[in-house]
C-alpha cells in the first residue's frame, strides 16, 4: 500500500509530522511503521500539546519515590511501605459504548498500578454526564450513566478492589461527551517496586495474559479526535474487558515478581504492544526485537499492523532474566494464563518487529517514545463564557431554595450509584462513600491513606486558573477534614480541542494554577492524564481538570461527618467567609435556582486555607471535635443539612451574626470553611487562634430539625426528614420515572 497524503491524514498525522518521521527513519515508513508512529505520536500517548506546560508542575518532595513518566507515581508512607496511584480517563470509549468503555477504563488504571508491583486497594471515579431529566437528551444521558456505573461496578467488583469514593456531576456541556476518570491506588513495600524497563541485552521479552484480537485498534488516536456523526461508527475501536482475566493477571504478576526473575514489566494499555515495547526499550536505552508469529492471537489472519495496534485488554509485557524464564512460566501456568517469549532485548536501541522472520518495522525506540512532536500551541486569554454581573438574587423562600438544592442532580445523594460498587472488599475501608474523603487502612503498617477526587467545570470556565486552585484547595480540605495530611497529587485534564487558541488558553491557565496551588499546599504532582478533544459537533465541554490528592494519617476511626448527639456546640472554622454577588455566579445556587452562570469563582487565600486545614487536622486527630464536615458546593446551608443526615438524625439550631445578605450567608461557596461540632468549644477556638484562624460559635446541635436564623429573624426551619427526602430521592426517582413513562 502506498503512503499517500490521504493515508497520512487518516492516521491523524500532519504533513509536517510525516516529514519528521521520514527524517527520523531516513526513509519512507511502511504502513505498519506509520501505524506505530500514529499511535505513539497521538495526543493521548505523547501529550504533544501539553508537554511544554506540564513541565511547570512541581514533582518532588521528601515523600516522592517516583514522579511522572512511569506507569504510576509512587509515594513513601513510612514503615518501609509505599503507595502507587494515578488517574486515567476513558471519556471517548464511554460515550461510544458506556459499559465496556467504563469497565476497560477501570481495567487500564488497575494494570498501571499492579504493573509496578503494587496491589490495588482502592478505586475512585469522577464521572460527568449531561442532565438526566432533560426532555430531549435525558434518555440518552440516563442510558450512558447506567452503562458507565454498571461497567465500573462489574469490573471493580469482580476484580476485588473497593470503589471507595468519587464524584458525579451534571452539565449540558457533557451531553455528547461524558467524562469518565478513574483513579486507583495500590500498596507495596519499597523492595517490591518494579519499573517498565527492558534492561539486560539478551534477556527474553515475554508476553503474558489475554490473547490479542482486533479490538481497540486505534483507540489512542480515536481519543485524540473530536466526535462527529461518524464517531458512532467507531464502536469496534472500543475494547472489551474481562475482569476475571485481570484478577488472574494481577495474582500471577505479583506472584511472578516474587520469583526474582522479572527485570521489568509494563502493561499493554493504549497503543498495546507498540507502547509497551518501545517505552520499555526507551527507558532502558535498549532495543527490542520481537516476532509477531509468537504473539498469542484470538483471531486468524491478523496483519502485523493490526497486532501492533490492537488494544485488547488484560495483557502485559515483561522482561525476565535470561535462564530464569521457567520460574515465570510456572507461575503463569498455575494461573492458567498464556506466557510466551516473543522476543529479546537487543543493544541497538531499535524496535524491530518481525513477522515469521521478515522485518516489518524497524524504528528507534527513542523516536517513538521521546521524540514525539512537542507543540507550543498558540493561545489567547481564556474567553469569558458569561457576563460578570448576573441577575438580582432576591429569594422569597430560602427553605424552598435549600430543598431544591438538596434535590438537585449535583448535590443529591449518590447512594444509588455507590451501592452498586463493592466499597468494602479487602476490609480496609475505614471511611467510604459519604465521607468528605475516603480513608483506607494499610494492613502492612499502622498508617491509613486518605484520598479525594474533585473537579469544578463551572468555576474553571469562569477562571481556569483560580478554578483549578480552588479544586486543589477543596481536595486538600477534604483530606484534612478526615485528619489526613495531604502529600501528593495526580490529575486528569479534560479539555476541548487544543488547536483552538481559546481552549489552549484554558489548558495553560489551568496547569499554571495547578502548579501554583500544588506548590503552596506541598502536594507535588506524581503523574496524571490529559484528555483533549472533548468536543462534540464543535461544542467543547466545560474546562474540567479533575484533581486527585492522597494524604496520610494514623490508623483510627475518623470522627463522624454527621452530627452524633444533641447539645454540642457548632462552630464554623474559617469564619463566614467573604463573598459578593459576582463570586456567587458559579455556585450551585446560581445553577439550580437562577439557572444561570456569571461572575467569577470565589476568592481564595491559599495561606489562610492552609492554616484552616492545619487547624481541623489537629482538632480531628486529637478528637477535640466529634463531627467535622467541609463546606463545599451549596455552601453552609447544604453542609448543615448533610451533617444532619447521619443515623442519629441530629440537626442544628444556628444563628448567623453575619453582615452578608441571607442568600450569600446560606449558599455562598467561599473556601476555607469547615463545620464542626464539639463539647469543647473553647478548645476549638484555642486551636484555631494558634493558627491565626477564625472559629465562630454559630449554634448547637438539636434533635430532628435544622433551624438557621439571623439575630432578628428565622431564615428557615425544616425537619430533617423534610430535607432528607429530596436529597435521597432524586437519583432513584429519575430512573424510576424513566421506567414508568
Amino acid at each position, binding site marked *: 500500500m502506498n503512503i499517500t497524503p490521504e493515508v497520512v491524514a487518516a492516521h491523524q498525522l500532519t504533513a509536517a509530522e510525516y516529514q519528521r518521521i521520514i527524517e527520523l527513519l531516513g526513509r519512507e515508513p511502511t504502513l505498519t511503521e506509520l501505524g506505530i508512529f500514529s499511535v505513539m505520536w497521538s495526543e493521548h500517548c505523547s501529550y504533544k500539546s501539553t508537554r511544554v506546560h506540564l513541565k511547570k508542575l512541581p514533582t518532588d518532595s521528601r515523600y516522592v519515590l517516583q514522579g511522572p513518566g512511569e506507569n504510576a507515581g509512587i509515594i513513601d508512607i513510612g514503615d518501609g511501605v509505599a503507595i502507587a496511584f494515578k488517574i486515567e480517563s476513558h471519556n471517548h470509549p464511554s460515550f461510544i459504548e458506556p459499559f465496556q468503555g467504563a469497565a476497560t477504563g477501570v481495567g487500564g488504571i488497575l494494570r498501571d498500578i499492579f504493573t509496578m508491583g503494587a496491589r490495588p486497594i482502592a478505586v475512585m471515579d469522577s464521572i460527568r454526564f449531561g442532565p438526566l431529566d432533560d426532555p430531549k437528551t435525558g434518555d440518552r444521558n440516563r442510558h450512558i450513566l447506567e452503562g458507565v456505573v*454498571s461497567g465500573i*461496578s*462489574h469490573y471493580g*467488583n*469482580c*476484580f*476485588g478492589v473497593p470503589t471507595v469514593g468519587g464524584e458525579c456531576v451534571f452539565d449540558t456541556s457533557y451531553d455528547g461527551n461524558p467524562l469518565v476518570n478513574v483513579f486507583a491506588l495500590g500498596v507495596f513495600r519499597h523492595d517490591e517496586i518494579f519499573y517498565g524497563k527492558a534492561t539486560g541485552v539478551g534477556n527474553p521479552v515475554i508476553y503474558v495474559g489475554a490473547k490479542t484480537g482486533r479490538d481497540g485498534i486505534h483507540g489512542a488516536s480515536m481519543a485524540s479526535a473530536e466526535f462527529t456523526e461518524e464517531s458512532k461508527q467507531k464502536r469496534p475501536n472500543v475494547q472489551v474487558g*474481562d*475482569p*476475571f*482475566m485481570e*484478577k*488472574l493477571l494481577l495474582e500471577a504478576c505479583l506472584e511472578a515478581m516474587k520469583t526474582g526473575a522479572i527485570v521489568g514489566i509494563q502493561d499493554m494499555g493504549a497503543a498495546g504492544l507498540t507502547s509497551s515495547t518501545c517505552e520499555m526499550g526507551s527507558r532502558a536505552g535498549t532495543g527490542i526485537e520481537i516476532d509477531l508469529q509468537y504473539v498469542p492471537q484470538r483471531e486468524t489472519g491478523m496483519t502485523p499492523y493490526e497486532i501492533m495496534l490492537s488494544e485488547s485488554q488484560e495483557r502485559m509485557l515483561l522482561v525476565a532474566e535470561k535462564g530464569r524464564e521457567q520460574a515465570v512460566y510456572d507461575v503463569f501456568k498455575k*494461573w*492458567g494464563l498464556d506466557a510466551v517469549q516473543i522476543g529479546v532485548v537487543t543493544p541497538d536501541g531499535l524496535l524491530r518487529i518481525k513477522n515469521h522472520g521478515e522485518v516489518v518495522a524497524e524504528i528507534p525506540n527513542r523516536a517513538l517514545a521521546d521524540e514525539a512532536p512537542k507543540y507550543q500551541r498558540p493561545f489567547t486569554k481564556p474567553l469569558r463564557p458569561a457576563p460578570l454581573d448576573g441577575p438580582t438574587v432576591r429569594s422569597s423562600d430560602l427553605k424552598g431554595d435549600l430543598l431544591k438544592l438538596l434535590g438537585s442532580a449535583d448535590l443529591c445523594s449518590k447512594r444509588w450509584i*455507590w*451501592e*452498586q*460498587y*463493592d*466499597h*468494602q*472488599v*479487602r*476490609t*480496609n*475501608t*475505614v471511611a467510604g462513600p459519604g465521607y468528605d474523603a475516603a480513608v483506607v*487502612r494499610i*494492613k502492612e503498617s499502622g498508617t491509613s491513606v486518605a484520598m479525594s477526587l474533585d473537579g469544578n467545570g463551572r468555576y474553571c470556565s469562569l477562571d481556569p486558573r483560580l478554578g483549578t486552585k480552588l479544586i486543589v484547595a477543596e481536595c486538600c480540605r477534604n483530606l484534612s477534614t478526615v485528619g489526613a495530611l495531604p502529600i501528593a497529587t495526580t490529575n486528569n485534564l479534560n479539555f476541548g480541542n487544543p488547536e483552538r487558541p481559546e481552549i489552549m488558553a484554558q489548558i495553560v491557565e489551568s496547569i499554571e494554577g495547578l502548579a501554583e496551588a500544588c506548590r503552596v499546599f506541598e502536594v507535588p504532582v506524581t503523574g496524571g492524564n490529559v484528555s483533549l478533544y472533548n468536543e462534540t459537533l464543535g461544542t467543547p465541554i466545560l474546562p474540567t481538570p479533575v484533581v486527585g490528592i492522597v494524604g496520610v494519617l494514623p*490508623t*483510627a*476511626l475518623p470522627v463522624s461527618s454527621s452530627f452524633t448527639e444533641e447539645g454540642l456546640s457548632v462552630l464554623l472554622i474559617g469564619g463566614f467567609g467573604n463573598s459578593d454577588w459576582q463570586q456567587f455566579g458559579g455556585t450551585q445556587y446560581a445553577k439550580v435556582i437562577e439557572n444561570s452562570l456569571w461572575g467569577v469563582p470565589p476568592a481564595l487565600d491559599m495561606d489562610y486555607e492552609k492554616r484552616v486545614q492545619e487547624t481541623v487536622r489537629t482538632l480531628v486527630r486529637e478528637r477535640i471535635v466529634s463531627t467535622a464536615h467541609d463546606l463545599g458546593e451549596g455552601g453552609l446551608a447544604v453542609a448543615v443539612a448533610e451533617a444532619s443526615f447521619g443515623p442519629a438524625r441530629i440537626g442544628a439550631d444556628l444563628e448567623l451574626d453575619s453582615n452578608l445578605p441571607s442568600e450569600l450567608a446560606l449558599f455562598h461557596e467561599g473556601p476555607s470553611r469547615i463545620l464542626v461540632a464539639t463539647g469543647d468549644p473553647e478548645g476549638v477556638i484555642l486551636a484555631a487562634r494558634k493558627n491565626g484562624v477564625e472559629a465562630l460559635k454559630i449554634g448547637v446541635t438539636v434533635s430532628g430539625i435544622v433551624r438557621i436564623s439571623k439575630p432578628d429573624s428565622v431564615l428557615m426551619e425544616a425537619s430533617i426528614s423534610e430535607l432528607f427526602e429530596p436529597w435521597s430521592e432524586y437519583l432513584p426517582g429519575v430512573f424510576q420515572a424513566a421506567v414508568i413513562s
Partner: protein
Amino acid sequence: MTVGVVVFPGSNCDHDAHFAFRNSLGADAKFIWHDSDSLGDVDAVILPGGFSYGDYLRTGAIAKFSPVMGAVKRFAENGGPVLGICNGFQVLTEAGLLPGALVRNAGLKFVCRTVPLEVSSTSSAFTQGLEKGQVLRLPVAHGEGCYIADAATLNELESEGRVVLRYRDNPNGSVNDIAGIVNRERNVLGMMPHPERAADPLVGGTDGLAILRALLSPEAFHSPLLAVSHT
C-alpha cells in the same frame, strides 16, 4: 486448630476471611488452592466470596467441578464445619451441599450495603454464641443473592429450623427473607452476608465475629446432643 480458606481463581474475599481469623480471632488459617484434591490438616473450611472462575455460565457453576470441591464434600460428610460466604454460598448450592439456588437480585443491580439480619434459628453450632431473635448488622455485596427454592424445600427448611439468618430489610428479593441456611446435618452454613467484613471495630463493626468464632469449636458440630435437642 486450623481454618482452611479455599482459593478459586476469581475468589476475592479469601484474604479478608484469612485476615479475620488470624487478626481478629488469633486463629491459624491457611489457603487451599482449587486444584488440590485434599484439604490437608484443617478443622474447618471457608468457601470465600468473589467470582470463582469469573462466575461464567452461572455463579458457582464451574467451581463445583473443581478438584477441591470433592474434598470439601467428603469433609462435610464427615461432619466437618463448612461456611460458604456469598460466592461460597452460591458454590454450595451448585454443588448440592445446600438446597435451593441464588439468582439475580430482584432490583437487577449489584448491591453493597450493611443490613440488619435476624438470627432466626439457633439449631446449629454456627450460632452457639448467638440468641434467637438477635439482630446482627452485616454487609452484603452481591448481584446474585436472591435465594429461591421450591415449595417442598422451603417447607423443609422452615419446619426443620434450618433458616439461620433472615433479612430485616430484604435487599435482593430472597424468598422468606432468607439470608443463610444450614444443611440437614447442620454442619454446612451458606450465607450471602459477609461476617468477615464485620470482624474488626475499625471497619464494619464486630457483629460477624460470633459466626466465625463458632468454626473454632469444630467439636460442637459433631455433638449429637445439639442435633437431638433441636429436631
